[in-house]
């Protein structure tokens, strides 16, 4: 099992639109899938604690690149102590090895720190459908994910996972999780 060194130097920030592989995009070499294919595989891996959304929905995969015959996946942690981090690494390894990737390196990147702004719109919609209010810069949920009432109040800044807070709806009386905006 390839484990990321917990002390590795942070990788440089990914440059949007720049493909590090020398092979042209979309042209798969034998045994070396395109980066699009790898991203598609990664988008099928659910978050271990909130399985309604995928790792790519969450926005924690910062970069995927080939370095020679080795695939390098750069991941940024949501919260520094999040216990899901090691499970996420394991899930990525299992999935990519399952797709035939032999040489894999997982890199941890701390800066820029993960922000809920990187969560995809699809991810936000999936969260809401699952009953978790998606993050908002305003600092609180737009409405109750169950009955859509705007009559909501905070119970606690912290919830069942580091990334969530506890709120409740005073209309339908249901408590719900709110994905904290950081």
């Amino acid at each position: 099992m390839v484990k990321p060194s917990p002390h590795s130097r942070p990788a440089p920030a990914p440059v949007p639109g720049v493909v590090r592989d020398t092979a042209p995009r979309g042209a798969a070499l034998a045994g070396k899938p395109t980066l699009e294919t790898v991203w598609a595989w990664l988008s099928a891996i659910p978050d271990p604690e909130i399985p309604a959304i995928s790792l790519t929905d969450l926005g924690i995969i910062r970069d995927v690149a080939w370095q020679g015959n080795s695939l390098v996946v750069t991941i940024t942690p949501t919260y520094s102590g999040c216990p899901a981090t090691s499970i996420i690494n394991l899930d990525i390894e299992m999935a990519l090895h399952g797709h035939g990737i032999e040489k894999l390196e997982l890199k941890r990147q701390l800066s820029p720190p993960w922000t809920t702004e990187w969560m995809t719109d699809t991810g936000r919609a999936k969260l809401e459908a699952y009953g978790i209010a998606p993050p908002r810069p305003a600092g609180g949920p737009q409405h109750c994910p169950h009955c859509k009432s705007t009559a909501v109040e905070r119970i606690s800044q912290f919830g069942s996972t580091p990334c969530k807070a506890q709120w409740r709806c005073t209309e339908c009386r249901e408590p719900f999780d709110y994905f904290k905006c950081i």
Partner: protein
Amino acid sequence: MGDNALVLGHRVSEWCGVAPVLEEDIALANVALDLIGQTQLWLGLAGEVEGEGRDADKLAFHRDVWDFRNVLLVEQPNGDFGQTMMRQFLFDAWHLAQLTALIDSSDKEISAIAEKSAKEVTYHLERSSDTVIGLGDGTEESHRRMQAALDLLWPYVGEMFLGDDVDAAMVEAGIAPEPESLRASYDQLVGDTLVAATLTKPEDDFAHKGGKSGARHSEHLGHMLTQMQWLQRAYPDATW
């Protein structure tokens, strides 16, 4: 930074399962989790810089009291819930200021860890200051306890702002801020919060010291380490 986060993280985790209400239990466990996560980053970096093959676990579990460099405030016992939250508030207010300054560190890794941690600690401070205000400006009983906690813990505040030769060298290299430089804004923030909490800041600024230098920890740290380190000491290098 690593030892402060580790010792306070462990202290706060002692509440897990026994906090006054479920929401507070969860919140305390979350704060502890953030601090232990930050510990892994700081001590991991410390071990790497030291270059003697010690990782974060080795540094956390294989050192004795005199090798710890945490300030005395964080090793103080939990006391009641109010005392725990007062300790948290007094530390958070310094912690966020320190991390914010470290984002500008000339060392890229220190800057990255500080940037990540500052986001988490912003939440910690928001919660601890709200709680200090809520309990200070609460019932007669909660007010009395919060004032007692403040009187007890205030003599541990000054140490966070004391610099030594190592600090001076770090200031010189642009790695970390001058500890004393954070004092004015700290006093402002803490002062405002204590006023809102109807609490009286002790006039005497006497400060206990010796934790950050390792010269004179309080008795409490040793007792805490016997709990925190017993497994690694009984079964060296045991892993999951």
